[in-house]
């Protein structure tokens, strides 16, 4: 079979009946238009697009957030040789921050029963943790927003996420002494229903707990599950984010996200990964669910237990004596960080720049993760 035969085979591949709904795109597009108009009027910085997952996120931020200062954020970003001063997040008098420090956790869980934290992402305007059971079929997403964050969800129609006023939800028993509401919920990509409970943990700052079950639904009723997690949850400065490596902040970037992910492979062995993601210093969105028009390239540096076969792509080279897979956006080098893998994603970077970034990663011993990972 030659190249032309390969491509012909693709072209002739029959497709099942379409699941694309043009009228739904029009309906949601109209709604987006209205949200965009509102957001523009409020000085919004970005437009939310249809995300792969439906989590609440930040559409606009209220006055008091310094959106024009490119140096806002964590670390000591430098650009074109000129270091920029690191500015600590502003904390208003009522102690509800308008920004989080991505190197501090703000969610503290109580008894989570059979669920464990599978991933935790910290960002400037929100933090998100995903808890799962052993089967991975029951999940609870917890999202806390900084002060002024605009909740955005997919609704029961399964359409794209859009701005939601949580106080229009169904009132329910208080959580931690705060008025709470049940909100319409939907997981956009997989079309699962969720039980979503939201309440204000601080001044104009919301936290949401959303329970989803992808099995036949024979376990704990989702509202009861969401309630039990909510009742044990505390939102406060819960301590530093320990990181298993340190790295020099890439030029013209600042720390945008950290993600700690733990799971179990099919063969029962544990898997752990930690990501530091850097965004352009001039980008004030820091939001991975924004529309492509709003996105700026992000650089992610990870240390993980990945081994060949865990991730897409085959081993195709060696790097400093270690097996490596080069991708269009970077490289993963297996066993390079004291036996763990270093994974760099830097879209648009040259091979030499990627190599240099991999070499700039300094792993830490398992027992001595650092609270100061930015060099």
């Amino acid at each position, binding site marked *: 079979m030659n190249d032309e035969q390969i*491509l012909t085979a693709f*072209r*002739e591949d029959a*497709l099942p009946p*379409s699941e694309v709904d*043009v009228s739904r*795109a029009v309906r949601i597009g109209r709604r987006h238009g209205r949200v965009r108009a509102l957001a523009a009027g409020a000085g919004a910085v970005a437009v939310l697009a249809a995300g792969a997952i439906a989590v609440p996120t930040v559409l606009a931020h209220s006055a008091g957030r310094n959106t024009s200062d490119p140096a806002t954020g964590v670390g000591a970003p430098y650009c074109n040789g000129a270091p920029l001063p690191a500015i600590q997040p502003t904390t208003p008098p009522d102690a509800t921050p308008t920004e989080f420090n991505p190197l501090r956790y703000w969610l503290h869980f109580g008894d989570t029963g059979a669920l464990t934290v599978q991933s935790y992402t910290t960002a400037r305007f929100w933090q998100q943790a995903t808890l799962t059971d052993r089967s991975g079929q029951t999940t609870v997403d917890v999202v806390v927003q900084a002060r002024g964050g605009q909740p955005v969800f997919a609704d029961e129609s399964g359409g794209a996420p859009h701005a939601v006023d949580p106080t229009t939800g169904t009132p329910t028993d208080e959580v931690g002494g705060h008025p709470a509401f049940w909100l319409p919920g939907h997981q956009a990509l997989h079309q699962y229903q969720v039980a979503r409970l939201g309440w204000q943990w601080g001044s104009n700052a919301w936290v949401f707990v959303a329970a989803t079950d992808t099995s036949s639904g024979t376990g704990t009723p989702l509202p009861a599950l969401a309630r039990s997690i909510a009742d044990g949850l505390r939102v406060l400065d819960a301590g530093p984010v320990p990181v298993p490596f340190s790295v020099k902040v890439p030029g013209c970037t600042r720390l945008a996200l950290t993600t700690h*992910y733990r799971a179990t492979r099919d063969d029962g062995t544990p898997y752990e990964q930690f*990501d530091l993601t850097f965004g352009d210093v001039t980008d004030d969105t820091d939001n991975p669910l924004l529309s492509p028009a709003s996105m700026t390239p992000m650089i992610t540096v990870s240390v993980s237990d990945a081994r060949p076969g865990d*991730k897409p792509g085959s081993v195709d080279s060696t790097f400093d004596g270690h097996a490596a897979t080069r991708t269009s956006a970077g490289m993963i080098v297996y066993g390079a960080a004291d036996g763990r893998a270093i994974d760099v994603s830097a879209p648009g970077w040259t091979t030499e720049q990627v190599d240099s970034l991999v070499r700039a990663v300094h792993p830490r011993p398992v027992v001595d993760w650092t609270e100061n990972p930015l060099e």
Partner: protein
Amino acid sequence: MKAEQERDFVAYVTGRMPVLRRVATQLAGDAHRGDDLVQQAITKLYTHWRRASRAENLDAYVYRILVRVFLDERRHSWARVRLADSPADRAAPRAVDDVENRLLLRAALAQLPPRQRAAVVLRFLADRSVEEAAEILGVTPGTVKSQTADGLASLRRLFAASTDRPGVLS
């Protein structure tokens, strides 16, 4: 958006739906996820229709949205280890006929890095020129050429490996 513009949008999207679905399916790896990509892409297109409809090359504009939706999704999933069996991981059938060839090719395509896959799909399935593909992907024409060449070479290699018949594609 005015009613007339909305009619233009619906007419355009409806007319391009078959090729958009085909391209998205090859990008995503299966028709269901491909339709998800198309649904997201045309929703974005609607919100930008006024500007998009004035674009010199509307098709390229739409493909750019589609590819970015795909790459965004891939970028986030890349952060996660593959924990579950996927069609590409399963043992390939030994015998090959046209249907099986297509399945094997699809599995091979799914193993290409996302941008390489996008380059192959845009060039050969969406029939975009090198220059158009470069504009859509935001890279140079030379990069598109090398990515498509590398992609096809990888397809041949992956297909040969999956059928255990070296050189079957040569």
